[in-house]
């Protein structure tokens, strides 16, 4: 069986997307900032009738057509819209891929009979897209290149045996060549694909790059070309709409429970767990309030997640009532099934800790809950790293006491009024007066030259363990290059 490929080209995708929502019966253009200027990016048919063309500067266009209405381009939204069309095109065949940023490719091999034939299928596609106010041009052929050419420069269906005849009258630009090559071909008098096909291949490939011959082969089916279908994206979202608005806490929780059950069942089937969930409540006054839950470990048990939501749901303002709930899990991680046996009962305490971290995280933010991990450094403040407790597990490779004691509390260096090489006999720190009893040291610590740390610019430090008459034991250092004393920590 020959392959049959449909190319759907949406020439006015950007303007159609905006005009579908806000229709205007006037010249309309979408503008985009490129080459240092606001330029027309996509036009509707009225604007084209006024003589405007794509790529024209906005000020020129305004001079030609003073009542032109414009809107800014949003490439991200356009892509999102095209993805929606891609999902919609799934109804015709399972093999759908993007082609550039304004067209789709459908491999309809073997699925045309489901709609009654190729003509009926194309008609159905056109009817449905036109009905939703989209401009579309289509081409159906045996190869990807031919379908592309037909959709851009012709229309209709090309049977497999009439491929060459159908392509011959089309301009060379229909071979997906760049502008420079097209111009060069035209200068040689090769205007159509038919004229190009009549030339000896060796001449073409010697004069131009192999690209021209390759594109021609792809269009005629002598060289295969793949369509990359988009991988199906599983969305973990569910929503519920109420006939009457609700506002009581218990009602919202009951609605949330139903949604959670649906999402958790899906997570269970996909062997994954949610790390972050969002509940969006649409209120009757068109506003939306939302509650977010970040979990300290991936979870998929509805009965465990629901109590964690309680606090944030209580804080929601229902206003005049909520008429739609939508729950989505927007951060999902794989979570394989685990065999449970009696010996792993001790894992419960870890789960309880994760639940606690989740609950604390909903109060103070998950980033504010940290765990210390050891790091390889002799610089005291870099001998450990602070890592998010939710995403790490404890590590027990802490350096044992290797003679030099480290202070229990560490702070950024606080200067004291002393410059001598030996530890000062009397000094004042944090408005307290101290007199020295015993000083142990120095322990010289050099900065890590491979890291540029502004606080270590003053060079090597000589650390002293100072015991004072007042009782407190301080960790002080002297910088020999810039004579000064600082307090950086306090011992137990």
């Amino acid at each position, binding site marked *: 069986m020959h392959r049959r490929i449909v190319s759907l080209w949406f020439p006015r995708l950007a303007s159609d997307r905006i005009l579908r929502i806000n229709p205007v019966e006037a010249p309309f253009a979408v503008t985009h900032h490129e080459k240092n200027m606001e330029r027309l990016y996509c036009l509707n048919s009225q604007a084209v009738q006024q003589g405007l063309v794509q790529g024209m500067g906005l000020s020129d266009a305004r001079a030609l057509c003073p009542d032109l209405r414009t809107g800014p381009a949003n490439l991200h939204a356009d892509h999102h819209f095209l993805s929606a069309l891609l999902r919609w095109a799934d109804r015709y065949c399972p093999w759908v891929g993007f082609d550039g940023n304004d067209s789709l490719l459908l491999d309809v091999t073997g699925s045309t009979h489901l709609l009654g034939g190729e003509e009926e299928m194309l008609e159905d596609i056109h009817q449905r897209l036109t009905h939703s106010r989209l401009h579309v041009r289509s081409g159906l052929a045996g190869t990807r290149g031919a379908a592309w050419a037909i959709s851009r420069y012709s229309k209709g269906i090309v049977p497999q045996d009439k491929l060459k005849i159908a392509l011959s009258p089309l301009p060379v630009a229909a071979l997906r060549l760049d502008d420079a090559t097209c111009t060069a071909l035209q200068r040689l008098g090769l205007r159509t694909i038919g004229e190009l096909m009549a030339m000896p291949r060796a001449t073409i490939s010697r004069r131009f790059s192999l690209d021209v011959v390759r594109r021609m082969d792809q269009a005629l089916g002598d060289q295969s070309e793949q369509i990359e279908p988009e991988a199906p994206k599983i969305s973990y979202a569910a929503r519920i709409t109420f006939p009457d608005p609700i506002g009581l806490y218990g009602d919202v929780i009951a609605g949330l429970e139903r949604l959670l059950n649906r999402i958790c069942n899906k997570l269970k089937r996909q062997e994954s767990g949610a790390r972050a969930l969002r509940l969006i409540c649409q209120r009757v006054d068109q506003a939306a309030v939302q509650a977010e839950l970040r979990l300290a470990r991936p979870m998929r048990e509805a009965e465990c997640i629901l109590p964690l939501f309680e606090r944030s749901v209580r804080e929601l303002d229902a206003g005049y009532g909520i008429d739609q709930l939508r729950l989505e899990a927007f951060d999902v991680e794989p979570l394989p099934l685990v065999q449970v046996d009696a010996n792993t009962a001790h894992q419960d*305490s870890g789960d*309880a*800790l994760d*639940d*606690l*971290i989740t*609950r*604390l995280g909903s*109060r*103070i933010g998950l980033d*504010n*809950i*940290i*765990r*210390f991990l*050891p790091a390889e450094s002799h610089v*005291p403040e870099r*001998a*450990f790293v*602070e890592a998010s*407790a939710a995403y790490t597990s*404890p*590590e*027990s490779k*802490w*350096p*044992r*006491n290797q003679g030099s*004691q*480290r*202070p*229990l*509390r*560490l*702070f*950024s260096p606080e200067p004291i009024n002393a410059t001598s090489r030996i530890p000062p006999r009397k000094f004042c720190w944090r408005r307290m007066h101290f007199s020295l*009893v*015993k000083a142990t040291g120095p322990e010289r610590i050099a900065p890590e030259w491979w890291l540029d740390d502004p606080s270590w610019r003053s060079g090597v430090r000589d650390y002293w363990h100072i*015991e*004072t*008459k*007042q*009782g*407190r*034991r301080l960790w002080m250092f002297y910088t020999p290059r810039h004579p000064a004393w600082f307090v950086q*920590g*306090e*011992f*137990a």
Partner: protein
Amino acid sequence: MAELEQFFPLEIGRAHEVCGAGASAFAAMACGADRSDNARTILWLQLDWQSDIVNPVGMTPFCDPSRIILARAKNQQMLLSCAEEALRSGAVSHVITELYRPLDLTAGRRLQLAAEMGKATGILIVSEGMGSNAAQTRWQCSPECPTSVSDGHNPKTAGLTVLHWELIKNKKGTLGSWKVCWNAQAHRIIVVSEACQ
């Protein structure tokens, strides 16, 4: 004079207060000295704008730093609500909270009830005179000047830091005052002498 063993390690399921310059060392020792099965994760609650941080490397002689989870909150109310939540959950064995404002009786009592429910030990580091009456015990800790302790006469404590611990409030029993040292190998407190009153 009462024995220190009656009060230390601290009673489980209660909230205790500690003040003075040696307060964080006291908290670290209280976690390290608890060798019951209960000894699990320690939640250390701090303010997020506080410049003094707990140094995990300096913590190694007292207790295992991998047990510590540090949480940073915006204000005292957040600190207390997190402490209560953690104490009640029973997922951690010790909750150490560094407070900067006076603690009122209601908040103190709530923490006490939460600790009782979760069977966890709460240690509140307060400034002097800012505790609440709901505390089970209140300790005043300060490091001792090395010369005031006659070195050498007690070979057990040679070269160790001597701390002065005073029990200034106790709901169940008498008060006391001790001079103690920490033995890092045995992970326990050595009483040097009972301070004379």
